[in-house]
Every structure is written in structure tokens, then in C-alpha cells.
């Protein structure tokens, strides 16, 4: 089963929930941190890294000897990644999505593909949990190709947990795509509710079943609960706002390790997700 953890709003506790579920299940778990812009899961479970890979995207490389500067490649490129002047061709690698279209339209066969480093992928283990995470190269705008690489490591025979980046645009979509279920983590505040609604709309459009975890319960107001009741969205778990939980998180400790009662709660949560996902 593939379960993604997403939120809309940042800082609601996605990574904390993802890690605590993984730790509570204990075995046959794969934790994939798809927040490649700011990966944090490894900071909480301290894995032993056994493999690292450099990740590249494909970008056009122009053979100036063959190029006659006709400009067809620049005209085709939807991302303005190629600029043709009478004297030379400029390629803006950061803007390239790697579709390969420029090669297809070039009448002179002057374009080949070269590699452009976009980040690093790490694979490791911590107490029976397999973790894979990507780190986007600083200054590199596009996270989705790296997220795809992280997701290539999905082992469907395991319980796969995907930690999604915040927001509701391409990086979040790329992560939750093909999930059996999505857990949305929110906090009971106006910001939390607003961004939850945006995330719910995305998942409904994508036809991915979902449930909500309310983190920092007790702060803010009750509107998140009213919304979930109206929309018939199951609230899978409530985690109260407690100074101890916040402190453990700040030190990089999954709170269910120090507060063992919670391990049972996360296991129950996961079983409920299994039922809701029909798995």
C-alpha cells in the first residue's frame, strides 16, 4: 500500500507524522521523503546511508558546427529554455523540462542531450525502516524530476509512506500521484483550514481517497472539524498541542519513541487507512 502524507500549508507536521507512523510500524516500511527542496525525515530517524547517487536531468546540447540558427528549437520550446541569436544558441538549463522536443524539431540534427545535475538521492536504513530521500541542488528550480527519481525506489511489497512537500502544485501532485490513500495533516487554525481545503480539492480531482490528522489540537478554533464533518472526511487522529511533543520534535526525536502509547495509536491509524483504502 502506498500512503502519502500531504498538507497544503507548510509546517503542520507532515514529516513528524510520516516518521512516527514508520517508527510505530517498525518493519516492512519504506519511507520516501519527496520534499526534495527541504528534506527533513532523515533528521528525525538518523539512518545509516548505504548508497548515494547524483541525479541528472537531460538538457539539450547544441553542435554549433551543424546548427544554422534557424530558431525552430526555440520556437518549439514551451519553457523558453532556448534562445537563438544569429551567432549562437543559448540554453537555459534550469528552465528545461527535458521533454526532448527540440531534438525532434531540429532539421539539421544539431541537438543531442547532455546531463545536468539537479540533485542527490540517498538511500539508507534505520531500525528496519528503509528510507530514500532526495536533495535538490540549491538554485535548481524544478523539483519534480528528482521526486520521480525518489519514487522510482517504491517497493510495493512494503508499506510505503511518502512525505510530500507543502503546497498544492506540481511537486505535491507528483508525490501523491498513484497513492492508494493520502493523509492530510492540518492544524485547527484559519490558515490550516484554508490550505486543507485547497489540498482536498486537488485530491478529489485526482480521485485519491483521503483522511485528516489534526495536529496541535486545542489551539485555534473548531472550524476544521465542522468542515470535515460537512465534507464527510474522516478524522483519523488528533494530536494535542503539548509542549513535550514540540520539544521532542525540536530535538529531532520522533515523539512516539519517548511516548510509547502513541505507537499503538499510529498503528491503529494505519490499519484504519488500510480499510479506507480498501487494501
Amino acid at each position: 500500500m502506498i500512503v502519502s502524507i500531504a498538507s497544503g500549508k507548510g509546517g503542520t507536521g507532515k514529516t513528524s507524522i510520516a516518521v512516527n507512523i514508520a517508527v510505530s510500524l517498525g518493519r516492512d516500511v519504506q519511507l520516501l521523503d519527496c520534499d526534495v527542496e527541504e528534506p527533513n525525515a532523515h533528521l528525525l530517524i538518523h539512518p545509516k546511508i548505504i548508497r548515494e547517487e547524483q541525479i541528472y536531468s537531460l538538457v539539450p546540447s547544441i553542435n554549433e558546427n551543424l546548427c544554422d540558427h534557424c530558431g525552430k528549437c526555440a520556437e518549439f520550446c514551451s519553457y523558453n529554455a532556448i534562445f537563438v541569436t544569429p551567432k549562437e544558441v543559448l540554453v537555459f538549463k534550469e528552465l528545461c523540462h527535458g521533454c526532448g522536443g527540440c531534438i525532434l524539431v531540429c532539421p539539421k540534427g544539431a541537438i543531442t542531450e547532455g546531463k545536468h545535475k539537479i540533485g542527490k538521492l540517498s538511500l539508507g536504513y534505520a531500525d528496519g525502516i528503509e528510507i530514500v530521500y532526495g536533495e535538490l541542488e540549491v538554485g535548481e528550480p524544478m523539483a519534480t524530476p528528482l521526486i520521480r527519481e525518489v519514487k522510482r525506489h517504491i517497493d510495493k511489497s512494503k508499506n510505503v509512506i511518502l512525505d510530500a512537500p507543502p503546497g498544492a502544485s506540481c511537486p505535491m501532485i507528483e508525490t501523491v500521484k498513484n497513492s492508494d490513500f493520502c493523509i492530510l495533516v492540518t492544524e485547527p487554525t484559519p490558515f490550516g483550514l484554508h490550505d486543507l481545503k485547497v489540498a482536498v480539492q486537488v485530491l478529489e480531482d485526482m480521485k485519491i481517497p483521503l483522511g485528516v490528522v489534526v495536529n496541535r489540537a486545542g489551539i485555534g478554533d473548531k472550524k476544521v472539524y465542522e468542515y470535515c464533518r460537512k465534507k464527510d472526511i474522516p478524522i483519523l487522529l488528533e494530536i494535542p498541542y503539548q509542549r513535550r511533543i514540540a520539544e521532542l520534535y525540536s530535538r529531532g526525536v520522533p515523539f512516539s519513541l519517548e511516548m510509547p502509547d502513541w505507537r499503538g495509536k499510529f498503528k491503529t491509524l494505519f490499519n484504519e487507512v488500510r480499510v479506507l483504502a480498501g487494501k
Partner: protein
Amino acid sequence: MKQIKQITVLSGKGGTGKTTLTAAFAALAKDAIVADCDVDAPDLHMLLHPKIIERQEFKGSKLAVINENKCIKCGLCREKCRFDAITEELKVDPFSCEGCGVCAIVCPANAITLTERISGHAYISKTRFGFMVHAMLKPGEANSGKLVTLVKQNAKMLAEKENIPLIIVDGPPGIGCPVIASIANVDVGLVISEPTMSGIHDLKRAILLLRHFDIPPLVCINMYDINRDNAEKILDFCKENNIEVAGKIPFDRKVIEAMTNGKTIIEYSPESNVAKEVREIWRKICNILDIAGNRQRG
């Protein structure tokens, strides 16, 4: 006319307090335009309650459309698409299509065209503090970076037209394309950090990003008293790297109360320690940007 100054509030990690602080700055600034550049999960409007005066469509990307009548089911589009956006049934998956157009040029039956999709809207609005520019990306749409750029262009145009000297940008989380768009050409990047292991990790990457684009960084630690040891680590890191720290804001539930009441902390609890510290931070920012200080304290 005088040069327009710009500051972007960013964080790397989400939920550290960017919007709360930006709203407070809006309340303090004498004459500024506020730009919400978190276009896929904008929250600033819930504190500033903008009245929209202008609305524009944003066509950020394209989508492949297959004409079923012309399609000869050869599957070449599926084979050539690098984004797995053509399904086994030879339908376009709109969540995967990046609008590159490769399918359209390889299709031997000319059955595929690209259509522009309306990916969101941009707005110019008025709030009780002045102008606000913002946008809403349709949930699930791509190209948030382009929409951020549009919001910033709107801010710049408005600033020039109305002779407003400052633009305050509320940035999105992360370090990817919308963040890069939100920090382009600004004078200062204010990174809001929190004293957690993740907060420290993400702060460092946000600083690297600012340095990569030659933008002077400034740091503020929010909720510093949640973990004073980690707050010290952030201070040490900043000292070692010659980064100015604008201030340390304590944790206070009043911030959440202000939010649930739809107000900035400056209005809701002007005498709180948070409001006092934010005023101090704002004073420092005004000095750094060399602009005139606060509006009348209210």
C-alpha cells in the same frame, strides 16, 4: 523617481511564521505594497482582508488535447512522452502533462493540439493598510513560478504608478521555482527560522539559495524559546557566516488568537512581547533598506 525597495520573507521550512510576520510588517509600514507570493496556498488575505479592485486571468501552461475522431491509436504519443502523461487508453492525464508539445509533433494523424489552460488568477486589491497584490493558482496546476513573477510585476507596476517606495513579499516555503521567482531582484531576503533540527537544516539551505542569487540575507528566529539551545545554534551559525540577526520572537498563543480573529498581532495585542519584538525587527529592516520608519503606532 526614487528606487523601489523590495524585501522577501522566506523560510525554507513551511509554517515558521512568514505570513504572520508579513502581515505585521504591513500594519507597521508607512507606505508599502504587500505581495503574497505563496500562490498555491495563500494565507495573507485572511489577516489583511483585501477588497479586489482588479482581477486578471493567468494562463500559465498548456495541455495536450487528443481529437478522438482523428486519432489512429498508434501510441506514438505515449511512447515519446517523457512525463507519462498519455495513459494506456491513449488519454491525456492532465496532472502529468507539462504542455511540452512533443506528442503534437510526433502524431502522424495530426490529432493532437495544445490548448492554453487558465491556471489561476492574479489580483490587485486594497486593504486597510494600502495596496495588496496576490494570486490564486488553481489547485493542482503547474507553473506557480510564472504566477509569482506576474504578482511581482503587478507590484512593481503599481509601485511605480502610485509612487510607493517599498514592496514586502510573502514568499512560499521550499527553495524551488516559486521561491526563486519570489526572491528575484529583491534587496533583502528575511529568513524566518525556528529552533528545531528541521528549522536549522532548512534555514541553511535558504541562506545558500539567497547567496546563490547574491541577495543579502537577514535572519529572524521565531518561537525561539521552544528550544533555547537550538536558538543559540542558529545565532552561532549566523555569527560564523556574517549574517545579521534581526531579532528573536518568543512563542505566544496570542499569535494564534490574532489569526483566528483575522487580525495582525500588531492590532490584536500591541503590547505583547511578540508585537514589541516585531516592531524592533521592522525598525532594523527600515534601517537596512534605508527607508522611512513606521506609521503612527495604533
